[in-house]
């Protein structure tokens, strides 16, 4: 039977099927029809996430060669390697939507795509390695665990593995801080100083407040995103306060206190102007982070070209051998 349908009717059918799939909590897969906006939103989010993993290698990566024990060196090297792996999975997930890794890399180093602003802060001491693990990876986990149920299959599956590894990193960071706070006075001061510097930027990792987050509502309707920025931020604060007490460090917020009525901690307002400045390129390390990434990409161009030329020659030789 041939059913004549107009293009408009066909699109409507696709849309209804897509909406039903989302409503039933099933996954959208690469070959499924999806609205252009859904695809575009996902490519933007996944590639920013991939860029964040790759740029995020730098602040801690700087400490690998200077790690103060061989055990910490091995842990840190493995962690930074995991981040490269996360970047790879995520670029692959973006490629299932028709994006191209090389183009995404160009967009990163040209400043056309963003990465998490947290990585534009410096890491002046080894305590930063521990605090990044505890607070930054902790905030990342709060953001990312709900993404394991994201409606787009390849993204959700990548996030499951990434979250497992991030949990491990957080645990290692916390354990480093535990060791340091039980060490010398100088080490305890180093940890407190790092907490003072990273606390507010970590709260900013959840993004602007809900009433100022333009893309959130649609992403939640599409079930790409599951919780609002403010919900996740609150969850992070509630989880972190008892951990700070166990470590014996002070979180630098005079307004931070338990609110019995709400059943949550009240806390101060992050400096949203600072977040805007850092996102727009004016953070302490924005230029340096991009310069390092650009240098690696450009200095490696001849190596990638050589690999491609060799592969082409090999293919040519194989054809010659067959003929």
């Amino acid at each position, binding site marked *: 039977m041939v059913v004549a349908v107009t293009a408009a009717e066909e699109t409507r059918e696709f849309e209804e099927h897509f909406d039903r799939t989302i409503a039933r909590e099933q996954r959208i897969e690469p070959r499924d029809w999806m609205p252009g906006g859904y695809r575009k939103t996902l490519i933007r989010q996944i590639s920013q996430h991939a860029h964040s993993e*790759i740029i995020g*290698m*730098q602040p801690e*990566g700087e400490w690998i*060669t*200077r*790690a*103060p*024990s*061989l*055990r*910490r*060196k*091995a*842990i840190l*090297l*493995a962690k*930074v*390697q995991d981040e*490269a792996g996360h970047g*790879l999975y995520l*670029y692959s997930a973006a490629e299932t939507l028709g994006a191209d890794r090389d183009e995404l890399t160009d967009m990163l180093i040209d400043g056309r795509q963003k990465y998490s602003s947290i990585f534009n802060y410096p890491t002046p001491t*080894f305590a930063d390695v521990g605090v990044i693990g505890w607070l930054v990876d*902790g905030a990342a*986990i*709060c953001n*990312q*665990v*709900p993404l*394991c149920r994201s409606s787009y299959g390849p993204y959700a599956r990548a996030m*499951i593995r990434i*979250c*497992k590894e991030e*949990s*491990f990193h*957080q645990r*290692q960071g916390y354990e480093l801080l535990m*060791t*340091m706070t039980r*060490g*010398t006075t*100088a*080490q305890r001061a180093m940890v407190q100083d790092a907490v003072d510097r990273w606390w507010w930027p970590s709260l900013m990792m959840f993004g602007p407040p809900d009433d100022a987050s333009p893309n959130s509502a649609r992403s939640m309707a599409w079930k790409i995103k*599951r919780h609002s920025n403010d919900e996740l931020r609150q969850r992070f604060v509630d*989880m972190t306060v008892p951990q700070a007490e166990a470590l014996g460090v002070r979180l630098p917020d005079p307004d931070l206190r338990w609110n019995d009525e709400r059943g949550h901690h009240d806390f101060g307002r992050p400096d949203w102007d600072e977040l805007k400045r850092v996102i727009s390129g004016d953070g302490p390390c924005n230029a340096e982070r991009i310069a*390092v*990434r650009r*240098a*690696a990409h450009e*200095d*490696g161009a*001849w*190596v*990638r*070209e*050589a*690999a491609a*030329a*060799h592969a082409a*020659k090999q293919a040519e030789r194989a054809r010659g051998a067959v003929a």
Partner: protein
Amino acid sequence: MSDNPYEALSGEGDARWAFGTGFTDPLAGVDTGVPDGVDGSDLATYCLMLGDDALIMSHRLQQWCTRAPELEEEVALANIALDLLGQARLLLARAGQSDGSGRDEDSLAFLRDAPEFRNVRLAEEANGDFARSMARLLVFAVWRLALLDRLAGSRDPVLSAVAAKGVKEVTYHRDYAAGWVVRLGDGTPYSRERMREGLEAVWPLVTELFTPHEVELRLAAAGVAVDPSELRAEFDAVLDQVLGAAGLARPRAVPGLGGRAGGGNARGRHGEHTAELDDVLAEMQTVPRALPGATW
């Protein structure tokens, strides 16, 4: 999956984690007595030689981190650096244990000065470009694999265990480096030139790899160590195979090339190093030396 991000962090013990969070003795379960007829101080020196080779080579590979030509190379180079770091930790721990000094891996890594390091000078050379780094890694891995392969039969149970583990790891390192030497040698005219220059740059340091130190000879005679001069034939055969596939000629030995040619003197094994090792140590040892008494 639960939405509680911290659930995975608590209450499940260490078993599921790759590293765990406990401090375990890397030599647990292996008989760590010094074998009969073997001088503990010789054994410690030999462990420092092989351990320092791995530690310093790992450091040079760590310096590629965030600078590699492709993300896959970031992962691979970190992997190789981690393997070598793991070998170094076991060997340094063995050194501190067999000389009776009780020094642990960290005091040996961070509190010795350059003349006390026993690594071959090949390991301490600065990275140069990717081709030169791959030339060095190929030479290092071909030599070390031949060495570990024989060392797996050592009378010392610790060295034997470390070598057996290392053989699997360094087999991959050798494959990885050989793959890039072939790709760059065969790739474009530019990459071919870079590869040729990279090989020429590391070649003067090759002779040293096969020149035995007296400790190596004594321990080899006791069935504990490997006499490096026995590795040359295997090294040459493998190198020729890789260079043949890459379409590259083996660099000629150039006698009297500055201070680096070194003739037959095993300088690194005697604690004689280039200024490049000072650079490595300045970077590697900075924090522990600045904060004595700190625990990490």
